[in-house]
């Protein structure tokens, strides 16, 4: 670290950012969370006790896993401004807004759309085969990946500053996304196969009702009826049928 902020300062920002979503609100979204994280280093970046935090209270929304990357860059720009380089408040605001949108979309696709379903599908496969060590491995690996991504984000963003925009554009993200998508679809297919092979476990007489329930549920899911409602309504139906058939 060559600037005003040391490794420990950036680590404190990372720790505050872990609980970023705790201050999520409809008006400014993550603005208060961002200010809370900036507050941990504001003494060093705002020695005159001026308007640093006030300037960062405007609307901000991004994927929480990629916020450290943006904030790392913001810290570098604030530092450059303090050193007298030609960086204005508007430049920093534009930098934040320019990165937040694309990173929000990337984060949603990568984490919520691929990594999380991948981890949960793996967990279900291990749970079906009663392998607690597999469950433990899934949770450890997922958290190691998420936390290291966030920690790396703060340091990488801080190291790059303006160059962050250039570093993030390019085909690398598409490649990562393709690999994650492929893996999640592969594991999803494995889980689907395991569940389908269990259709005949309760005797072949149950295969037809199971296929019918799967088809009806899929139809309802396509019409935005949650699967949990289908499951809840199905129990009294089954008990009623059992009472009728004796």
């Amino acid at each position: 670290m060559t600037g005003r902020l040391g490794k420990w300062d950036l680590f404190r920002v990372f720790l505050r950012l872990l609980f970023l979503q705790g201050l999520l609100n409809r008006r400014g979204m993550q603005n208060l969370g961002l200010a809370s994280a900036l507050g941990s280093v504001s003494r060093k970046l705002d020695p005159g006790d001026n308007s640093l935090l006030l300037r960062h209270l405007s609307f901000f929304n991004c994927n929480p896993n990629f916020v450290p990357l943006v904030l790392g860059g913001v810290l570098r720009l604030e530092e450059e401004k303090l050193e007298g380089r030609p960086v204005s408040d508007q430049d920093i605001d534009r930098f934040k807004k320019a990165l937040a949108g694309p990173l929000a979309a990337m984060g949603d696709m990568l984490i919520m759309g691929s990594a999380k379903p991948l981890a949960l599908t793996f967990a279900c496969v291990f749970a079906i085969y009663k392998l607690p060590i597999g469950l433990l491995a899934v949770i450890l690996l997922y958290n190691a990946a998420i936390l290291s991504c966030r920690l790396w984000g703060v340091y990488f963003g801080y190291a790059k500053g303006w160059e962050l925009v250039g570093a993030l554009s390019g085909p690398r993200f598409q490649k990562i996304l393709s690999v994650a998508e492929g893996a999640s679809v592969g594991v999803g297919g494995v889980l689907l196969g395991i569940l389908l092979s269990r259709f005949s476990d309760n005797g072949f007489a149950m295969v037809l009702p199971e296929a019918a329930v799967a088809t009806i549920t899929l139809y309802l899911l396509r019409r935005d009826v949650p699967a949990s409602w289908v499951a809840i309504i199905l129990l009294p139906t089954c008990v009623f049928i059992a009472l009728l058939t004796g």
Partner: protein
Amino acid sequence: MSWFITLGVIAGLLAVDQRAGWQSLLAQPVFSAVLVGSILGEPWAALAVGVVLELIYLSIIPMRGVKTPDHIAAGVVGGGTTSLLLRGPGEPHIAFVCAVGLFVGLVAGELGARLALPMFGLQNRFLSSVEFSPDASGRRIARRVFLLHASSVGFIFAVEGLLVLALCAGGYYAGERFTGLMNGALVHGAMGWQSLLTAIGVASIIHLFWQHRLRNALAVCAVLVVILLWLV
């Protein structure tokens, strides 16, 4: 009562992770039910409940304002009720108790989401109304934001903890009543229901990957696994 308080504390901690923290996946039913089951001494039954809840919830991705059931309440109440019922006196019918726990968990998930919504809405409204004077010093703002942050996390812990405490007590009471009514038709119906939940899991996975450009690969993988498992 002490078990319900323990479950409430666990749920509060999981809520902090899920709503304020980095979403470590521990709040997902497949993990939270096992966690609760391990503490109560019935990890395998809780695992069976947790995995079915997870399969049902797999189709719901919490993105772009989608309303989701309360995963924490479902996992903790489902796993907790199952484990507590199995710890009760007599020789319990394990599969039937699991079905009861599963149903209680599903209902708790729906109820939890609806009951927590106004509370967290209130928190959201309060945080949205926070104003800072343009003359306020940076240190004062930093201190106020930090206090807001800490109290917000505490609020999340308290709301979810109390909610799950109440749902656990209600769920356990209802589960006890339900298992007390156990007769042939009820057991038969509950067992049939449990086997049909696999079908809902299948529909959930297909729905999850429905829009995916690689859905043909999903189908190929599934067919290969079915063939492999039949051969084995």
